């Protein structure tokens, strides 16, 4: 139980210098960012290092920040060291024009479908993924529905008979 957030941070900074940045402890969970080119190197280091042992991928997903120009998409990894029972969150950002991020499937079999899901909803292109195709949506879909430019149906639209949808409709 000797592994602490400070220790992880120290080891990462020692290895990757200024590339790993923006360390935070949001509700006690160590969070940091790195350039997307380094994602595999960092995951591998976290996995292999004799002290860090982050060998369990809890979760992988993406977030869309449309105002974050050239870094619109964040890919978020949640890793867990089960021996010392400590978790961390690691983010890389990519532009929406060229959303290429290296796949983590070589390291974690669990990443396979999670990356497909992320591709399906955000269009992140996981370079080197063995089978990167849509998983939950229909294959014919030509957009990435969880991106922020696709809002859910506008609640103020008036071309439908709103009374049928419990929205009151236009009062005459």
């Amino acid at each position: 139980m000797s592994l602490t957030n400070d220790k992880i941070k120290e080891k990462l900074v020692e290895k990757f210098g200024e590339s790993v940045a923006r360390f935070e402890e949001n509700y006690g969970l160590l969070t940091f960012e790195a350039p997307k080119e380094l994602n595999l190197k960092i995951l591998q280091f976290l996995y292999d290092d004799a002290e860090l042992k982050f060998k369990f991928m809890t979760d992988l997903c993406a977030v869309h920040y449309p105002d974050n120009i050239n870094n619109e998409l964040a890919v978020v990894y949640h890793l867990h060291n089960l021996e010392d029972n400590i978790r961390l969150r690691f983010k890389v950002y990519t532009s929406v024009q060229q959303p290429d991020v290296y796949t983590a499937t070589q390291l974690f079999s669990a990443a396979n479908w999670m990356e497909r899901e992320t591709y399906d909803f955000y269009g992140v292109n996981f370079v080197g993924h063995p089978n990167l195709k849509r998983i939950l949506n229909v294959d014919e879909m030509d957009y990435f529905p969880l991106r922020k430019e696709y809002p859910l149906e506008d609640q103020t639209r008036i071309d439908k008979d709103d009374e049928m949808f419990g929205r009151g409709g236009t009062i005459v």
Partner: protein
Amino acid sequence: MSEHQHHIKLPEGSIEKQTTTLNLGPTHPATHGVFQNILELDGERIVSAEQTVGYIHRAFEKLAERRPLYQITPITDRLNYCSSPINNMGWHMTCEKLLNIQTPKRVDYLRIIIMELARISDHLICNSIVGVDSGAYTGFLYVMQYRELIYEIYEEVCGARLTTNIGRIGGFERNFSNTAFEKLEKFIAEFPKVWKEFENLFTRNRIFVDRLQNTGGISAERALNYGFTGPNLRAAGVDYDVRIHTPYSSYQDFNFIVPIGKTGDNYDRFLVRCQEVWESLSLIKQAYNKVQEFKGTEAEVYHANAPEYYLPLKKDVYTKMEQLIWHFKIVMGETEIPKGEVYFSVEGANGELGYYLISDGGRTPYRLHFRRPSFIYYQAYSELTKGSMLSDAIITMSSLNLIAGELDA
């Protein structure tokens, strides 16, 4: 056993194909839920399997981005609908973590009673369905009667049975009635005998054991790499349990064992679930004892003191000024939601159910991601079934406890 051991030798020039493609699903009578598998069969032996999922995808993560926190609870019902209360409570606790709400002990213990009942009802289904798939229907019909007792308790607490929407952010919508506790006592009294009998029917049954042992097995190392959690991981011999590793809802106040298996095969998964039912039952008894220790006004506590987030009683909204104000503020999204990112997970009945919630301070989440255990471990299905018989693959699917609602979100 090599996968081609029983390979048929076709004569030279035969027009017969070596393998057959079989579409198992999406609505195959032998699978429980909407699953499709495209199997490549050599006789009855599976050469390769490819799962196609998403048949009941309902875009929960997108929907959640338009809903205030308290309206997301019904969405979570529809993930693993065999144990909805665990999903509901997990979501409430995620919000409570974001909003920094401390729940009273009594609420925690009541939650544990409900969550462990849900775990029992989930394991009841899973294990009895494994029985159905191996040809033993009786156990299933027998234990279903006792799931009914659990559902009656839910009904008494929240009014619903399957998709429960139980509780609120901060606690429960009302105190448990005496009838709820009576029903709980009835369940605690009657259920052990039933479960013992169920175990007697199965665990040492020669036919059942032969069907389950050495089928659908996975090593601890592969299971971890595949992101297995819950009973499936524990059956492979890894004692990871969120209730122990990251205690929530005061699980640290309780004594219970985390049963583990060894080979990770269908039989071990079955045994681990059987044992977990006993542990859940013990947890329920312990929690009920603790709940009974609260006397007087303490026994009336069923929610946290967090008026800015906990929806007030409707009858108070009609008669009391302050409650009316809070009701208005919560419903209209006037209460302060902190900015921040939270990852919170609970030990769902089939694994670690995680909620990754990003709040930008608005009334709805900026992003909400569900870590759905069955979505993650179902990817191992082709590896688990490669080279096995078709009929074993059906059992493997059941014993993984795949729930289509959770898989497809």
